[in-house]
């Protein structure tokens, strides 16, 4: 970050220093980064994502897709093989996808042990979006079975289980995870697969949308953000899941006249305030002992704070982090308020501070790139229409083109009697 200190430069006139050149999105480097991720092994450190390997697949394919080069720079055979691999993650009944091949019991799989190899909401969402990016039309998915499985994961309070597991009977109601992420994933899968009323081949149990909305609303915190459950601290990742889920359930924007069902954010203007408050510049990257996980808060910004290089943090008094440039701006985009942030400043943070010389984006300044932050950094720039990046759809975190393709699928349209 080149903050120019006027007293230390030898200016002889009172002229302001020349403006710094505008950073550019280094498309070629990003292409190289994604092709390497797609064609060579990911480093051993990714082992912690092994059970959600399909999320890594999503970031890699979607990353290249969002910058508009997936179709140009990969071969049709390659894409076919990747599509086959994704379908190999679908469980034999056709009702959902596992998180990755690590639990695949292949020919040893039986009704007695299949609970150790379950389909999961993340696995199913990531496989579906990745298939769509690769040009697949989802014909090999059993829509009815998948939708019924999704509905079966919902609990009476509206929340969703991530999956059914073999240890489930040992859980009690209060030990179960019930955060907004899984409602978001269920809402996205439902939005894609359910289509228009009357498009399914048989009656298919739907989720309880009213209860899902009530649960999402109940996660509002005292500062009008949303956390992982009622009472939890506001966190931009959960706020994204709440807003994107409402959007995909058709419950984000209340109509002008009052309705009898639950709809919208409880306090939309206050939540917008919470969201725009996330924008902040890093305060300690110049420090020698820069340590992102230091146990106390980073130094506060100067007052008034600098206007350049402001990324986004996920919670109050935390450091900005590349992924929140998407989670936060994506929320505002869905609320039709993304113009309220300083997009240029966010761009500076991404392109000058976290873009990496080998392509991709790191989590924070000086960090090596990883697939999650590289993908989400590009999607964030896509929201503000960066040159060289496709237009994006914030709710599905992919290209707008993908969403439009889904909307055009014949199988999503109402069946007309022949």
């Amino acid at each position, binding site marked *: 970050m080149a903050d120019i200190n006027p007293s230390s430069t030898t200016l002889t006139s009172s002229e302001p220093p020349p403006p710094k050149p505008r950073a550019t999105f280094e498309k070629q480097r990003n292409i190289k980064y994604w092709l390497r991720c797609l064609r060579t092994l*990911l*480093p051993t450190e990714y*082992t*912690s*994502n*092994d059970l959600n*390997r*399909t999320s*890594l697949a999503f970031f*890699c*394919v979607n990353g290249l897709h969002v910058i508009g080069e997936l179709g140009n720079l990969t071969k049709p055979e390659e894409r076919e*093989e*990747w599509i*086959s691999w*994704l379908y*190999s993650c679908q469980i034999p009944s056709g009702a959902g996808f596992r998180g*990755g091949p*690590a639990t695949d*019991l*292949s020919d*040893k799989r039986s009704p007695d042990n299949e609970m150790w*190899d379950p389909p999961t909401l993340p696995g199913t969402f990531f496989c579906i979006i*990745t298939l769509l990016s690769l040009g697949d039309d989802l014909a090999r998915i059993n829509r009815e079975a998948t939708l019924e499985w999704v509905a079966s994961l919902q609990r009476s309070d509206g929340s969703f289980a991530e999956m059914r*597991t*073999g*240890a489930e009977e*040992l*859980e009690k109601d*209060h*030990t179960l*995870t019930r955060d907004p992420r899984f409602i978001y994933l269920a809402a996205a899968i439902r939005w894609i697969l359910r289509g228009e009323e009357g498009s399914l081949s048989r009656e298919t149990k739907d989720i309880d949308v009213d209860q899902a909305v*009530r649960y999402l*609303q*109940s996660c509002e*915190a*005292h*500062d009008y953000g949303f*956390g*992982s459950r*009622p009472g*939890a*601290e506001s966190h931009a990742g959960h706020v994204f899941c709440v807003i994107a889920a409402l959007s995909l359930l058709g419950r984000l924007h209340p109509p002008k006249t009052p309705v009898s069902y*639950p709809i919208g954010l409880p306090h939309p203007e206050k939540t*917008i305030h919470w969201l*725009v*408050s996330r*924008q902040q*510049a890093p305060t300690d990257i110049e420090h020698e002992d820069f340590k992102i996980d230091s*146990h106390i*808060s980073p130094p*506060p910004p100067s007052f008034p704070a*600098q206007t350049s290089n402001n990324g986004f943090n996920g*919670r*109050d*008094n*935390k450091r900005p982090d590349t992924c929140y440039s998407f989670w936060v701006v994506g929320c505002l985009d869905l609320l039709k308020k993304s*113009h*309220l*942030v*300083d997009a240029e400043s966010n761009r500076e943070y991404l392109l000058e501070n976290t873009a990496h010389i080998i392509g991709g984006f790191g989590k924070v300044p000086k960090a090596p790139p990883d697939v999650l932050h590289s993908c989400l950094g590009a999607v964030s720039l896509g929201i503000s229409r960066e040159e060289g990046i496709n237009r994006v759809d914030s709710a599905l975190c992919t290209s707008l083109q993908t969403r439009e393709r889904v909307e055009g699928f014949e199988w999503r349209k109402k069946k007309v009697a022949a």
Partner: protein
Amino acid sequence: MASYSSEEEEEEELDYTNDPVWADVTPLPQDDGHNPLAQIAYSPEYTIAMSYLRAIMAANDHSPRVLNLTSDIIGMNAAHYTVWGYRFKTLMSLDRSQTLEDEKIGWSWRQELEWVQSIAKRYEKNYQIWHHRQLIIDHLDDPTGERAVTGEMFALDSKNYHVWTYRQWLVQRFQLFDEEELAATASLLEEDVRNNSAWNHRYFIVLGRLGEAGPEEGVVERESELAKEAISKAPQNPSAWNYLKAVLRKGGIELATLKPFCESFAPILSPDEIKSSHALDILSEIYDEAGDSVKAEKALELLASKFDPVRKNYWRYRRRLLGSKPTPASDTPTIQATA
């Protein structure tokens, strides 16, 4: 069998191919097909352990050796949700047959908890570890020492979301809304007044679980004093301002009562003395509610042009909203947080 003890377990490498314990198991290798996506450079140790895990799961084997196998894998991939679930089921089945603590296995729930904590310190950003701990503590129905365990984690990262989630569960499950909990948040805030997690937890303890009933006598005063003191120390700390506003709201006290306090940090007629953008923000709301649109506009313009210009689009948007008070209906939460 001493090999189940936690210390050695971390050091010891399991020798699946030569140890007779595993001789009856035919490993089930991973089928990655042709040209997979997101292939990871697994370590050879992980690859082999996972092949044994698949074989063990396929057979629904919950014998004592599963404890070694699962801890081996967790040491390499602590986010492996299936292996945690499989381990818990095995522990429970050994517990039910009353063999967990016998000589042959020589393990105990307390040892399990110690081992879990050693893993938690190695992998701080992990959900599964805390879920596992939650299941055990729930099963033992005894929270003794658990606050200290989370305290150790807060010494490493006082904002660890997973640990805070666990702490909230603990408080709720064992009804620990007490002085000790209050003191714990106070001491974290003393160490770092910007710790938003600690502020949130304090809100949860003091005001978050109230249903219809309002706060007890004196609580709102005490908590707003605490927040005001914190603000005096750090006027740009959003956590303390958010806490103050929420406490007043919960106590049914009007925002307008904050006017003198806010003006002491943001005298809009002497911009040089302004020390807090948050005070300006609240003042704009107070002036607007009082119908003083000139002052409200002034506060927002100071924010946009000088004191918080990165949000200038937002402050100008707020200026356009002046005079359009939210309807009472939209300002009443539609849902009460469940206690």
